[in-house]
């Protein structure tokens, strides 16, 4: 049996906290009169109890912003359903009831960037998986080929041509992968364990789901296009600063530069209009009118789409697409702009189509695997 004074304080605390039963209140009254202990002025204690405390150590929070982020990632938005057919090999037919599920379970990201260490040299096989003690697991594809990989947590990855992904043996505990090139991810949902992609100096964090990452060394910028859901980006240079992408937005972060306040959000999206002085730029993604395929993930459908793209840029993509090398004999040819798309054309058909569309401003010849572009 606890001693009477202890009991008194237990009851007193209960009374102030509003926990005491009628019987306990009676008991408290009895104890007070019997023990001659007068707890401090009850009225005052009550008022003190009801005065809220301030936690000085608690940082200020932006509930509105956090709500915005959350609601964007979990509530479905009808305009996104056109994406369903792109989801590789998977029949996604959003029913009305299950609509929320797709919004929560599908995220696409496209990223392109420059990576200092590009290991795709030499006559590698189409797919190579290395496993050594302590060394990260690697999967990579040569130019001109694609492959699929299942990660240990069940995440499915489709690698585009000329791409490499690696992850630690510790992957199952820390879901982090490193990517160069381009890949589509269908991430197994694990609420406690976010999935993080490191791409050059950019880190992308996703709490669930599916996305596409494009990451090639030739490009001067990291491009991330988010189709659905929400993802958070940070750079190694400024890990404190987080950028949250909204659906259908695309961000381009220029390499070797920090993210600063010079951000723009445009409704128009023209890649070539990014000015050099801008460190990053957010714009809307473009949708191919014909079948609502987002340009950024057209590769999933074996399509190479380009709009107002410089030949030099397009050539880089064709190099990966067809597994060839381009050589421009003349700068003027590199500056020709093209708009169009390739589906199943081979390299010769593609080059012929390009030459035709610019009224034969250039001609080409082959030297083994090299395509030489000559002025007319």
């Amino acid at each position: 049996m606890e001693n009477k004074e202890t009991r008194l304080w237990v009851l007193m605390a209960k009374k102030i906290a509003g926990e005491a039963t009628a019987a306990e209140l009676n008991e408290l009254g009895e104890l007070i009169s019997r023990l001659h202990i007068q707890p401090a002025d009850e009225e005052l204690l009550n008022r003190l109890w009801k005065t809220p405390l301030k936690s000085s150590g608690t940082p200020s929070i932006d509930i509105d912003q956090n709500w915005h982020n959350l609601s964007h990632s979990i509530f479905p938005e009808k305009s996104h359903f056109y994406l369903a057919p792109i989801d590789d090999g998977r029949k996604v037919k959003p029913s009305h009831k299950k609509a929320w599920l797709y919004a929560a379970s599908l995220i696409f990201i496209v990223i392109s960037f420059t990576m200092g260490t590009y290991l795709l040299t030499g006559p590698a096989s189409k797919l190579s998986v290395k496993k050594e003690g302590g060394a990260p697991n690697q999967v990579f594809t040569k130019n001109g080929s694609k492959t699929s990989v299942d990660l240990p947590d069940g995440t499915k990855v489709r690698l585009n041509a000329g791409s490499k992904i690696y992850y630690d043996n510790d992957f199952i505990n820390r879901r982090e992968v490193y990517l160069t090139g381009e890949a589509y991810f269908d991430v197994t949902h694990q609420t406690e364990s976010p999935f993080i992609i490191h791409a050059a100096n950019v880190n992308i964090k996703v709490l669930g789901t599916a996305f596409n990452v494009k990451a090639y060394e030739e490009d001067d910028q990291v491009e991330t296009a988010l189709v659905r859901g929400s993802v958070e980006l940070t750079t190694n240079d400024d890990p404190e600063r987080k950028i949250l992408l909204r659906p259908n937005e695309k961000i381009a972060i220029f390499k070797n530069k920090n993210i600063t306040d010079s951000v723009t959000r445009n409704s128009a999206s023209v890649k070539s209009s990014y000015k050099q002085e801008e460190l990053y730029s957010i714009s809307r993604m473009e949708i191919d009118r014909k079948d609502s395929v987002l340009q950024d993930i057209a590769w999933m459908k074996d399509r190479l789409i380009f709009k107002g793209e410089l030949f030099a840029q397009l050539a880089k993509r064709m190099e990966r697409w067809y597994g060839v090398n381009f050589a421009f004999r003349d700068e003027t040819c590199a500056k020709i702009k093209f708009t169009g798309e390739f589906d199943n054309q081979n390299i010769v058909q593609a080059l012929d189509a390009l030459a035709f569309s610019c009224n034969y401003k250039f001609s080409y010849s082959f030297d083994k695997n090299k395509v030489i572009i000559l002025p007319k």
Partner: protein
Amino acid sequence: MTAHCHIKDLQTRIAVNGDQAAFKELYYLLYKELFRFATIFLPGKELAEEVLQDVFTRVWLQREKLPLVNNLKIYLYSSVKNTAINYRKRYPLQSLSGPDLSAIELIYDYRTPEELMISDQMVAHINKAIKEMPPKRKLIFLLVKEDQLKYREVAEILNISIKTVETQMSISLKRLSFVVQFHLSAK
């Protein structure tokens, strides 16, 4: 009681109707308290925010199961605690021996001291008493007083006995009462 009924009502609307407005209301209703609770287990604002986004995301995605939850408030606190502890395991650099309450300093925000008959000196002493509470007692005090949780709920969330909550609360109140008493008699 009304607060409890209100949460119950929101819970039903979310579970049965997939009511986004109800979900938003729940979020705004409990965010601050849950956020502070999360910071007890995790250093840094970002991680605590992440934990909350995780927990609320899960509640929404699994809302069909909500009718099985007896007390949503306890469920949320417990989820925040468990998720936060899981996070801690993944960030070994920041691992701490126990809940970090040093970051939480309790300060009486007394705007009308005359009305409360509280002197600056008394406030200073009350704060000192609160500050000197051992972490576990402070946490219990915080949950009961600030978050207005029932003893039973605190016990469930922290996985301790109601007896422990009673004891810790009685000690807290006794100390505070003595501080107040001392200042009143000194007048």
